[in-house]
């Protein structure tokens, strides 16, 4: 079909800009980071090869364990809630309510605001002395809560802000999934006298499973990478009770300049994310061929 087949040449030329960027800023750093992780690498001084000592150090580093645990805590709290919220919102914006369009905008808009705007705003709402939440609690006769300063509450407070910020993203994905379900299925169910609840549990949820499992994987990956909102809202405090792994990677690398150790930790996080998304993918695999 093509005169003077130059497919190989053209394919290469058209791929070239991407290949250059991809090699320079993805493949090379990926390899280089792995290399560094075997060194006691100090940007200011010399570096020495220490084999897998960086990886061994992690086992004895209580800060590594606690940061890993806080990350996991964040994943375990936010994933189910954000999936459920996203699903309920998606149901709502596909219902017959006259406010569904307004709902779609209102639920989604927080997501487009940057993390720092959202964190700043929620840090203010949750401010201990002058924040709105505590004004309400006090006026109802309660004691002010240290939303961001009490170790009992700090992680939950960050999670609450995250719910408000990102639930709309899952709503969009699930809503697009719901819209792909054929109307006829609902119509015939309705004729058979199925209630709204039956339609949701017997039709919407089963047919939405591919989208739900996709949302689950995206959510887990995103939650493992949490950093910004914690950094802005609590700075990892109180007493390191909200310090997540990315923050520890950041501090180790850019405050203590232990680049090798920092790189090693980020690889461990990478492997954890990779393994959990592969596992989830396998779990969700039965929904793939729909």
């Amino acid at each position, binding site marked *: 079909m*093509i005169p003077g087949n130059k497919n190989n040449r053209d394919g290469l030329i058209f791929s070239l800009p991407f290949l250059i960027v991809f090699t320079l800023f993805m493949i090379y750093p990926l390899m280089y980071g792995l290399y560094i992780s075997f060194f006691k690498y100090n940007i200011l001084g010399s570096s020495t090869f220490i084999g897998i000592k960086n990886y061994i150090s992690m086992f004895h580093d209580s800060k590594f364990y606690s940061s890993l645990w806080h990350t996991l805590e964040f994943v375990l709290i936010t994933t189910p809630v954000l999936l459920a919220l996203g699903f309920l919102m998606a149901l709502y914006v596909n219902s017959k309510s006259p*406010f569904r369009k307004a709902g779609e905008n*209102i639920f989604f808009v927080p997501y487009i605001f940057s993390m720092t705007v959202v964190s700043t705003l929620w840090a*203010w709402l949750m401010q201990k002395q002058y924040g709105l939440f505590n004004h309400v609690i006090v006026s109802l006769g309660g004691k002010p809560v240290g939303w961001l300063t009490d170790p009992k509450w700090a992680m939950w407070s960050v999670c609450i802000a995250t719910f408000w910020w990102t639930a709309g993203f899952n709503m969009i994905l699930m809503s697009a999934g719901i819209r792909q379900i054929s109307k006829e299925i609902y119509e015939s169910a309705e004729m058979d006298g199925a209630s709204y609840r039956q339609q949701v549990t017997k039709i919407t949820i089963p047919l939405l499973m591919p989208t739900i499992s996709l949302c689950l994987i995206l959510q887990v990956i995103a939650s493992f990478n949490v*950093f910004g909102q914690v950094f802005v809202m609590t700075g990892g405090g109180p007493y390191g009770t909200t310090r997540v792994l990315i923050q520890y990677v950041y501090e180790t*690398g850019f405050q203590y300049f232990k680049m090798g150790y920092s*790189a090693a930790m980020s690889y461990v996080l990478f492997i954890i994310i990779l393994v959990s998304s592969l596992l989830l993918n396998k779990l969700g695999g039965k929904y793939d061929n729909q």
Partner: protein
Amino acid sequence: MTTSRNSAGRILLRIFELFILAVWVFPFLWMVLTSLHLEDEVVAKTFHFFPQHPTLANYIKAFTSTYILNWLLNSIVIAGLTMVMTLIVDAPIAYAFAKIKFKGRNILFWMVMAGMMVPFQVLIIPLYLQFNSYGLINNFMAAVLPRVSLPIGIFILKQFFEGIPDALEESAFIDGANRFKIFRSIILPLGSSALATVTILSFINSWNDFLWPLIVLNDTEKYTITVGIANFQGSHGTQYALILAGAVIASVPQFIFYVIFRKQIVESIALSGIKG
């Protein structure tokens, strides 16, 4: 039969809906209201919902005593550059994946998709050292370059380009056009809606990026707005009204962006999520 009971229930349901929607909007309203308060009103013993003496003082102060205008411009420049370069890098290879049967295409495509699995955080240490050795720390290009390849963008564009009929290309070939001409005058114009989707995704990603600009842009006046506001909160920790005015200023461009591109933003997210 049960119309009256049903309609009473419906009204209650609508009231409940409105209540939830109001709760969801409220934080924004609260941000704007706070920013219009006088600073000592915010931390006064008695609590005022509405500002007693509404003022724009915080906004004036934000613009005059901080670098907020610089930060906004920096964000626009960085997000704009990222957006343009993403298209330059992503569109040709997506076309190659969709329409050119070249050797190694499958392996390459698999590699691009694998790249999607790599969290950016793994790259920060090596990338920092790389840019440090190029002497590009504090340079906008350091903030732009690592964010330029957008594998999900390639995927979206490839899907779209595949839908463009081969017949169009073939007849152009017969008319003597080469690949570059076809790419420029057939594929790009026909793919404009997919290109818009990718542009928007890339813009949002870049604008909201936090960790990477925090690392590579060290001078206060070089911050992006996202980093600037976070820093603002750290250094003006007790000037709540001022901080919130800053947050309002930072969110205005995003809000305008949303109002203009609402449909495409929602579509691009639905597309990138579902197909990703």
